[in-house]
């Protein structure tokens, strides 16, 4: 089984640390990594990252994290940047944003802040996401770094959200969200952490392998030169 970590937060300015993190990901068993990049990233930096990933036999995926303040800002950002990145994730900080992101076909992943009041993945978002191609993203570093009451609340939210996603057929993507080497865990260890919010082991492994791979594959097909609309290609 091939595993993917679509949220490896490498420090782009520090190439040595970046290489260490990519090497560690490869060593732990990931064959695909997604690195969040600023929207105005230069192509030579992307090429450097891609080269470093190829060195460790890891597939490199460009990712854009959007944290808009309004629906209009989200739509504008999607219009401008969608075609330049393989994966687009939206941090939903308000209810209208979560609704729009859930129903927009250009959004790949919905992520939410850790505070329980700001997690807006309720049944309405789940239903909208099930009809579009959006998935629910869960970062393992959030679980590892929180403590006490905050973690209790967070796990309780995750338990509800995962159950909701399962009942509406919304795919879940598990990523590390690691900012340093020692926050990286093996895919099996990440899957075992999902035991804390009652996610089944087969679903957890899917969330680490099949679901992220499906997103990347779908977007790469869309970004290929011959693509016209779903099902139509210029040969």
């Amino acid at each position: 089984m091939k595993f993917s970590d679509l949220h490896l937060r490498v420090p782009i300015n520090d190439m040595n640390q970046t290489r260490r993190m990519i090497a560690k990901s490869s060593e732990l068993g990931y064959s695909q990594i997604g690195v969040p990049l600023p929207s105005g990233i230069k192509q030579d930096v992307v090429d450097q990252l891609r080269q470093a990933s190829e060195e460790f036999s890891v597939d490199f995926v460009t990712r854009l994290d959007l944290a808009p303040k309004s629906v209009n800002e989200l739509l504008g950002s999607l219009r401008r940047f969608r075609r330049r990145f393989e994966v687009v994730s939206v941090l939903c900080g308000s209810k209208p944003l979560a609704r729009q992101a859930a129903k927009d076909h250009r959004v790949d992943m919905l992520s939410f802040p850790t505070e329980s009041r700001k997690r807006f993945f309720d049944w309405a978002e789940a239903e909208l996401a099930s009809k579009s191609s959006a998935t629910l993203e869960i970062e393992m570093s959030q679980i590892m770094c929180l403590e006490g009451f905050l973690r209790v609340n967070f796990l309780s939210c995750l338990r509800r959200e995962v159950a909701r996603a399962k009942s509406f057929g919304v795919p879940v993507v598990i990523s590390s969200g690691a900012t340093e080497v020692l926050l990286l865990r093996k895919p099996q260890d990440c899957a075992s952490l999902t035991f804390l919010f009652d996610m089944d082991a087969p679903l957890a492994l899917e969330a680490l392998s099949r679901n992220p791979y499906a997103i990347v594959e779908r977007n790469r097909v869309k970004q290929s030169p011959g693509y016209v609309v779903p099902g139509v290609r210029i040969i």
Partner: protein
Amino acid sequence: MTRYVRRRYLALKVECGETAPDRDAVSEVVWKAVLRLFGEVGVSQAGLYLVHFDEKTGHGVLRCSHKALPMVRAAIASVTKIESQPTAIHVLRVSGSLKALSRKIARTTVEVEL
């Protein structure tokens, strides 16, 4: 009536920032992680025991009850610090006996070398 407790042996690799932790520190941090996440009942069910720990390489073997394996694995993955030093503990292999565990690890090492 259960005649004996089925156990699982976990091969661990402890990665630490600067100085390597000692056996007691590793044992304590795993024990505390289970306690924090699953409470006293969880710890009592887990039957934790650090069978072996090599401070030089950071490799160790932890024993737990087979029913508590998901709890223990989750707790181990949640460890981020030992004695305020950033740490990661990776589970390399899980097995039902020490003999099988050492065989599995030896096989993995040979595969990597090949």
